[in-house]
């Protein structure tokens, strides 16, 4: 190939590259970058989607309004409480069940598949059928509590405390399988000879679990935790169908509040500010965990 031919060829290559690249980039820009920029933009206006007239630039007023409102802090406290409880229960339960599933027994694969099923359902569906199961009069949970255990019927979705736990139970039911799946993957990637070495070194099963299994699977476990935290912080659909945020505002998560602000009251500007605050919190939390993750991966290398 002569120089000139080569240059021509390279130019053509470049064109083809862009030809393939741009459609995807345009779609991405349109679907992610544009809304994101608009979100930040609107968060500085008293803009309402339904009442576009009289839109004014108000600076940080939306943020100030949100952050100085005690209602906001109640919503955040509830959300953090819910996330902390639900995710830590799922985390511990997932690790324990995955550990149990490591041992060989008949029908292990079948059990594994069944255990993973809840994760495959849509959160809205999960919320709906847990709503039926939690029904005070004819739900199966109360049938169990009342007719089998002999306690009084529980108002699962009726009180503030109960509905928090009802949400946690439904969420745990749905997302523990995710922790099981990732924990299992982490556990089975640990080479068998390390356990053999540990057996010879007279380590008990508990010592092996705490000194080999957990530290070596920590990076994946932390990764799973990050996924779950990010997802739980944004919890909306399950709460929407299960409790509708009730009773009152008791189970209204930050996302739910955001939804109500933006799409029920149509305070689009304030809703945008909400969304941005939530985003910052999630990025902050994740970056702390990613630091930990990097440290652990480095250590295990």
């Amino acid at each position: 190939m002569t120089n000139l031919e080569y240059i021509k060829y390279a130019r053509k290559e470049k064109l083809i590259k862009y030809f393939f690249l741009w459609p995807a980039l345009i779609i991405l820009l349109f679907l992610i970058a544009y809304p994101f920029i608009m979100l930040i933009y609107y968060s500085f206006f008293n803009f309402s989607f339904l009442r576009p007239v009289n839109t004014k630039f108000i600076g940080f007023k939306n943020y100030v309004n949100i952050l100085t409102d005690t209602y906001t802090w109640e919503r955040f406290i509830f959300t953090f409480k819910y996330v902390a409880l639900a995710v830590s229960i799922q985390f511990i339960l997932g690790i324990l069940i995955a550990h149990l599933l490591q041992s060989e027994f008949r029908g292990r694969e079948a059990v594994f598949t069944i255990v993973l099923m809840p994760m495959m359902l849509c959160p809205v569906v999960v919320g709906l059928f847990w709503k039926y199961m939690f029904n005070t009069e004819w739900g199966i949970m109360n049938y169990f509590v009342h007719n089998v255990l002999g306690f009084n019927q529980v108002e699962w979705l009726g009180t503030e405390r109960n509905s928090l736990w009802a949400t946690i139970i439904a969420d745990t039911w749905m997302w523990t399988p995710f922790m099981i799946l990732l924990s299992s993957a982490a556990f089975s990637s640990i080479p068998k000879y390390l356990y053999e070495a540990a057996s010879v070194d007279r380590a008990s099963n508990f010592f092996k679990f705490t000194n080999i299994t957990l530290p070596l699977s920590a990076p994946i476990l932390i990764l799973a935790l990050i996924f779950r935290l990010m997802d739980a912080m944004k919890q909306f659909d399950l709460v929407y169908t299960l409790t509708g945020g009730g009773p009152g505002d008791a189970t209204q998560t930050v996302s739910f509040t955001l939804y109500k602000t933006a799409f029920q009251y149509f305070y689009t500007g304030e809703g945008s500010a909400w969304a941005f605050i939530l985003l910052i919190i999630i990025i902050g939390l994740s970056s702390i965990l990613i630091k930990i993750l990097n440290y652990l991966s480095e250590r295990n290398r």
Partner: protein
Amino acid sequence: MARIRLENLKKHYGKVKAVDDISLDIQDKEFVIFLGPSGCGKTTTLRCIAGLEAANGGNIFFDEKRVNDLEPADRNIAMVFQFYALYPHLNAYKNIIFPLKAEKMSSHEIKKKVMWVAELLRLEHTLNRKISELPDGDKQKVALARAIVRNPEVLLLDEPLSALDEKFREQMRIEFLKIQKALSVTTVYVTHDQREAMTLADRIIVMKEGKIIEVGEPEKLYEEPKNLFTGYFIGSPGMNFIACRAGEEGNIITEGNATIHFSKAVQKKVKDISIEKFIFGIRPEYLYFSKTIMKEGNYLKVKIINQETIQQIQYGNFYLGNNLYKCLMQDSESAGSVERYVVFHDEKIRFYDPESGEIL
């Protein structure tokens, strides 16, 4: 300290008999080496002793105690694995103290033990380093330190040198010998490298296809292998095994119809051999080229094909029939198609039964 006794030990994987009914007595403080080609069952035997594999039959005794049903942790053994099996998330120091921590030893005791073992293996400078940063030789040293730090009754080593470079091997071999003598711990070592076995072992156990072929001191196995396989496997180059039949006057006729002339004493021995075809075995190191024949000596006339140097020693190759054999070569000897006599001493001659492989 412990004596190990294997009694009709069997380990099968489906139809494959990895360990096929072996019995063996290992003395207290003895250094024994299981030697054999890959797949001969030596590692499986070791893993059965360790308790990492459950035997399908037979018994394993440590002293008078049957240990078949004991967990590895309850056997007071330590093991060094082929690929170190070090804990990657812990540094060298924490790897070494792992068995001590598992035993909940006091931190004061732990420190003393580590100082002792680090000094013994000259590991002081590596203690705080990450495993992935250590050179292979040091990795295996750390693994050895982890194994002996607890003063186990039995030390098991599964091909501990095969993952190392040649330069580390030499060093580690010396290390093993020193440690074994210093601790006087009963040691079972598995290898496929006959040189390792020859330099380290008190006794070598030669294995093949799940069975013990022969047990003995290294010199004994080298000098007088009771089995063709031992002669072939031990020593480099291996023993010359020449298929032959009895000829006139107690001499023998080899493949390719050459005649080996024997001295009177050997001729008498050959006449006593009852089977028609047998195998004449002699180590290349005990064969010499000569231009003349000594009276009353053993000799065979051959043509030297070429010469070959194995571990700094020169050998001349010659054909009998279609097979190549080796003979020690003096420096003065010229190579390439010359006719010579091969001469050798009476006491180095061995005869084997080709059917059973056993010595006659």
